[in-house]
């Protein structure tokens, strides 16, 4: 597809404005990094255990990794890092990590009976052994996966992204396969409401959910297998998405890695604003998560769409741009290449406003021009969709057209019944047919035009970016944590000493050791500036 934004950018934005935005974004990101670099969390420790391949749960369905880390905590051993404790246990018992975890969890071994772990080289060696083995293991599994994927076509851009959310994984499978056969490229399984709030990963295959289906390792596997099957049927590789956010964010990342997910919706700011999750906790979790995802070459997509659905999308457009810039540099710091950073934005301005279509165009082009190397996830109108399903088809058509004209890479398709219920099977067909018309009939559209210097679209884009830069300045001065505390976004105030999961945050002890911190990639350079 002819990509008009790969070069100087169709909006041809003032260079100095862009540079300033980038400079501020970087500076804000590194300040965050400094604040969290000495911290770890229970979820990071659990994730590290899961990286070793530890899984499953006790009778009550409480995952072993949760019980184990809790015991480390109550034994005041956690600051050494869960892996160091586990290694110790393995050494003493001679059992493998999974068995050792279960022994401790079942109370067959009492951690306090163990001498407090000095950061003995010997234990570290054992940790490294476990970690490297697991790491290589995952690497080769990843290779197999890539080989499989390479036997299939990867489809054409923009990729059509469709959600399933029946609450029942088996029902989800039917709906997902149907969608894939009808032209979907990406299937996202929406989570049951508020899974973000669970400080663990539910266990097993599930068939009961509200507004979505539980994100479990077993459900991931079921859907992955189903999609691989239809991929082979259609010859087109069908990508799988789930949410990597909330209190269990790092663990979900490891499951995404293990179960071969392709894209994960990952955004600490969403958790902070809409789930009242503590900012230190989730930004620390996010750092680790993103390093895991970058190891797995899993694309992240961010949640600015949630923000824009909450505030006045016209007045507050610049807060979205601001959040994207911060998210982008935080992601780079965590080792994600620009090509793995899928920034989210959405068509959410009041459609009844004069020239709103032009402002949507401005916003869509702005994101493309700011992040030319990144796959952007463009989301459809939802907030102003009503029960008038015919009108919804029209607004979604406008959205699809803008997606083609501004050359978006991932189009999340809007549903005619958006205002009513999670999608019925025919809703997906109608939405895919809508998008496929534009994808095909307007495939070369993005390369046809030049924007007039004086165009309203360009004016609007510059206005938004200018406001964003001003906001970035404030955030840079105060620091992101204070900014969040002061209600910078959606005027929701989230001080870093409140919110869910703070108790799961701890300062790494001097003897803290976690081999994955060195194994996992970090700090990618921003190709956009090469």
């Amino acid at each position, binding site marked *: 597809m002819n990509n008009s934004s790969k070069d100087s950018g169709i909006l041809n934005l003032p260079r100095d404005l862009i540079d300033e935005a980038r400079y501020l974004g970087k500076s804000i990101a590194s300040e965050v990094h400094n604040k969290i670099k000495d911290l770890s969390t229970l979820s990071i420790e659990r994730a590290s255990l899961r990286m070793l391949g530890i899984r499953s749960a006790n009778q009550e369905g409480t995952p072993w990794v949760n019980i184990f880390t809790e015991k480390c905590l109550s034994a005041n051993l956690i600051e050494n890092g869960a892996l160091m404790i586990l290694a110790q246990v393995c050494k003493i018992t001679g059992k493998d990590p999974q068995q050792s975890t279960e022994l401790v969890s079942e109370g067959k071994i009492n951690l306090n009976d163990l001498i407090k772990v000095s950061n003995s080289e010997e234990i570290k060696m054992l940790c490294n052994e476990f970690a490297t083995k697991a790491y290589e293991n995952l690497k080769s599994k990843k290779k197999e996966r890539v080989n499989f994927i390479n036997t299939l076509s990867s489809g054409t851009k923009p990729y059509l992204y469709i959600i399933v959310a029946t609450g029942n994984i088996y029902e989800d499978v039917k709906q997902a396969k149907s969608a894939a056969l009808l032209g979907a490229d990406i299937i996202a399984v929406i989570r049951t409401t*508020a899974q973000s709030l669970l400080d663990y990963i539910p266990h097993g295959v599930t068939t009961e959910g509200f507004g979505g289906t539980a994100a479990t390792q077993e459900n991931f596997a079921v859907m992955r297998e189903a999609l691989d099957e239809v991929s082979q049927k259609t010859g087109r590789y069908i990508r799988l998405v789930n949410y990597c956010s909330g209190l269990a964010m790092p663990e979900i990342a490891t499951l995404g890695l293990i179960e071969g997910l392709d894209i994960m919706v990952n955004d600490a700011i969403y958790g902070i604003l809409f789930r009242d999750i503590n900012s230190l906790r989730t930004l620390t979790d996010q750092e680790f998560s993103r390093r895991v995802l970058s190891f797995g070459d899993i694309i992240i997509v961010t949640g600015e769409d949630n923000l824009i659905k909450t505030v006045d999308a016209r007045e507050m457009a610049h807060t979205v741009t601001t959040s994207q810039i911060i998210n982008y540099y935080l992601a780079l710091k965590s080792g994600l290449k620009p090509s793995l950073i899928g920034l989210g934005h959405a068509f959410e301005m009041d459609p009844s406003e004069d020239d709103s279509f032009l402002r949507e165009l401005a916003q869509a082009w702005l994101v493309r021009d700011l992040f030319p190397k990144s796959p952007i996830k463009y989301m459809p109108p939802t907030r102003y969709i009503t029960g008038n399903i015919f009108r919804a088809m029209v607004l979604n058509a406008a959205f699809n057209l803008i997606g083609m004209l501004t050359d978006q890479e991932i189009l999340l398709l809007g549903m005619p019944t958006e205002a009513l219920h999670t999608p019925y099977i025919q809703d997906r067909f109608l939405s895919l047919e809508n998008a496929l018309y534009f994808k095909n009939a307007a495939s070369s559209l993005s390369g046809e035009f030049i924007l007039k210097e004086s165009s309203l679209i360009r004016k609007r884009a510059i206005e938004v970016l200018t406001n964003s830069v001003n906001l970035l300045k404030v955030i840079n001065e105060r620091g992101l944590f204070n900014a969040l505390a002061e209600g910078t976004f959606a005027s929701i105030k989230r001080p870093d000493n409140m919110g869910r999961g703070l108790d799961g945050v701890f300062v790494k002890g001097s003897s803290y050791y976690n081999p994955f911190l060195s194994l996992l990639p970090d700090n990618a350079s921003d190709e956009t500036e090469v």
Partner: protein
Amino acid sequence: MFIKPYGDTLNDGAIQISFSLAIPLGEKSKKVSLELALKMGIANPKITFSQDLGEDFSFFIIYGNLSHEIDIDSIKTTEIQEPKIDFYDINRLVEEKFNRKIVVVGATIGSDAHTVGIDAILSAKGYAGDVGLERYPVFQVHNLGSQILPESLLEQIMDLQADVVLVSQVVTQKNIHIHNLTQLVELIEGAGFRDHIILICGGPYLNKELALELGYDGGFGAHSLPSEVASFIARKLLEKNK
């Protein structure tokens, strides 16, 4: 007078339906879809579009002429709505009667994270140009936000000595909203606090009838205006222990 749907001629019964079936597209599924239409009372149904959805599903759009008719004279509409009390009268009358601020507590309960709706009613900005309750001098508003468990809402109600409680429910899947709203009423009644407060729920899929059933004083559905809610509250307050 009996009435049927209208397309372009009085009582032609013109109607459109669409649905999917868990059978692949074929002669059989087409017949099934037409049979269903006939059972619905649609005369000479025509499949104007059909599509195989894969995985043994098919989709149908059907037009036809409905044979059912309704005697509109038999339809009773409820007594006309009481006139709306306006901004100034609300503040004046309530002030006169209670000469103190009325404590309004609002929240979205359960795991529901949708706040735009309740904010539209409470926040100063309001909805569709209609200012929210925070703008009414006589109301002292506490917006607790979303994901408030019924238990903790009850605590707050008692701590803040609420006069009015506004509850929002947007997610309705598997009737989770019914479950949450019922649980809340029971807790409040259990605490013997029910008579002390005016209890109102709202959300896109709620309405007055349902709210009363569930034991609420009032219920508001999609596109409600803050001024309507304020007027309703004022009337209830003025009726109260007279």
